[in-house]
């Protein structure tokens, strides 16, 4: 069991979007806890609510149309959802930082990267510009940017995608956060650059000891990075366990199907079809009754079509939301 202090504890989070076409229950019952210094992976396909969960933690849900309608997000035991905007601003980008998929759109094109990082630093720390610049160069150096003094005065467009993502990481870590949220931060990068960035994140995590919430659709990325993995489907966590458990004995039919369906890089070519999951992710406007995975589930019964399963701890530390979990 994990003896480390619980840093973030999300309980039954519900974030809905009220659109002209109807209500989208983007996040509808997400439970997740992150310990101090832990690397947690939140995995799911598009529309499963993983990014909305991240934005809910940051309290950055655009309102309207979005609204956090229920649940609690405890950070150091205090509910972030009860904080006012002023208090939230002190936490955001300071205690909790976030990096996104698109470093180009997250950086301001008309300021140098150095100025942008310095601004982030002076916003949260009472230091003068000279000291801020020194800290910035130090951060650029830390994230492996060569010639940090020269890079300080460059604009985002003068950098490659991998370099920009390093700048984003430098900015996010400049305040020494306790939690770093990485939302598909390596998805847009080439595989050799992705390897560089993942390697950097792993190294910085060891060195600085912050907790990381890695949000991705890529199971291989979390397999390499995360200690604990939560699998989301249609706005709910369907399975949550240690990375080892998830990959060795997945208990939810969705997790099981997902793992079986991805081609294995280390296996020789066969002409056998991949065991695909039939059907598609449900439309957020028409969520199926009962278990949300039931229309695609090979084990679905009448009960699954009628009732919604609760998430239960089947073995210590292994939580599954299913009436008919797969035998381990």
């Amino acid at each position: 069991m994990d003896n480390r202090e619980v840093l973030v504890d999300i309980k039954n989070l519900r974030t809905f979007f009220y659109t002209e076409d109807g209500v989208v229950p983007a996040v509808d019952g997400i439970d997740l806890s992150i310990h101090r210094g832990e690397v947690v992976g939140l995995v799911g396909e598009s529309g499963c609510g993983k990014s909305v969960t991240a934005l809910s933690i940051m309290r950055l849900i655009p309102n309207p149309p979005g609204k956090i309608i229920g649940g609690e997000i405890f950070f150091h035991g205090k509910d972030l959802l009860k904080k006012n905007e002023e208090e939230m601003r002190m936490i955001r980008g300071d205690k909790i930082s976030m990096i996104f998929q698109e470093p180009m759109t997250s950086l301001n094109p008309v300021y140098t990267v150095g100025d942008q990082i310095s601004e982030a630093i002076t916003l949260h720390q009472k230091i003068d510009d000279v000291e801020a610049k020194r800290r910035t160069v130090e951060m650029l150096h830390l994230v492996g940017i060569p010639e940090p003094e020269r890079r300080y005065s460059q604009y985002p467009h003068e950098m490659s995608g991998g370099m920009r993502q390093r700048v984003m990481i430098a900015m996010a870590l400049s305040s020494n956060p306790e939690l770093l949220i990485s939302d598909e931060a390596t998805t847009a990068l080439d595989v050799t650059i992705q390897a560089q960035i993942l390697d950097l994140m792993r190294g910085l995590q060891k060195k600085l000891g912050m907790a990381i919430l890695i949000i991705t659709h890529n199971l291989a990325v979390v397999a390499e990075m995360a200690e604990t993995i939560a699998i989301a489907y249609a706005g709910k966590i369907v399975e949550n366990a240690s990375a080892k458990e998830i990959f060795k004995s997945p208990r939810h039919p969705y997790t099981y199907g997902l793992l079986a369906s991805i081609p294995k890089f280390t296996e020789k070519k066969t002409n056998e079809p991949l065991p695909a999951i039939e059907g598609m992710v449900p439309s957020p406007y028409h969520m199926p009754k009962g278990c949300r995975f039931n229309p695609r589930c090979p084990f679905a019964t009448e009960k699954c079509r009628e009732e919604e399963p609760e998430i239960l701890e089947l073995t210590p530390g292994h939580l599954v939301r299913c009436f008919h979990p797969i035998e381990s």
Partner: protein
Amino acid sequence: MATRLVEVQNLKKWFPIKGGVFGATIASVKAVDEVSFFINQGETLSLVGESGSGKTTTGRTMLKLLQPTGGKIIYKGKDITNLTPNQMRPLRRNMQIMFQDPYGSLNPRMPVGDIIQEPLDVHSIGTRKERRQAVATMMETVGLRPEYEKRYPHEFSGGQRQRIGVARALVINPELLVLDEPISALDVSIQSQIINLLQELQQRLDLTYLFIAHDLAVVRHMSDRVAVMYLGKIVETAENDELFDHPLHPYTQALLSAVPVPDPEVKRERIILQGDVPSPVNPPSGCHFRTRCPYAMPICKEQEPLVIEVAPGHTAACHLLTKK
């Protein structure tokens, strides 16, 4: 002995960069630079590489959707490099392409039945009734309900749109299909459905694929042979298992080692390449890879390595291999 369906020899595609007052060509982007490969009837050759390596341009130039700057394209023994668009038209029936973006590649104002039928109209194949029938059959083949033919692309999900793309490409019965990142934009659980569909259709219709991709796990699953591109050049070509089990070029080795594996208990030796891919406008002298290569030697700067056959069917271009 397998028959060669298509072969390209020293294919080049340079894009001019215009500048100055008179708009003279001041430099070229050497997107594809002296690339050679062949594809046998009924097989899948995968072209892998990172963004900017020239794999998409290679696929399009091979189909003559872009006019090559140099080199030769041989289709079924016939040199098609300098055919005019009119001369190409009858051949186009045999070669089709399917794109990555299931949103951008379908006309949003056309019902999908018409989208799938368009190639038949362009090539004046069959009567009106026969075309309608062919569309219905094709929709069924790719797993779409034929009664959806009146619907518009926005009514379909990403995976279904890729099925529409497959149907449109296959409705005129081509021999060769260029698949340009056909699954990268899809969700994980949908990717395997499209992979299965492509493989099933290949066997059923005896199709030849040029599969352009960056996801190496999918490449391993799909390909008969694999060619690795870096900065406009093919650095290594081999049979699937041979390439993945015995990569020879330092770039291939690094690329394969960088792929994350979905198994937390596998700890792999990783070669982390330093730096970024250089600009194709001004590639490094000698071997293009030398600036990031952990084994770079003085000769790599001076001479471009030749493509040599290391084992039957396994070719690579690296000075390390010629030194021995």
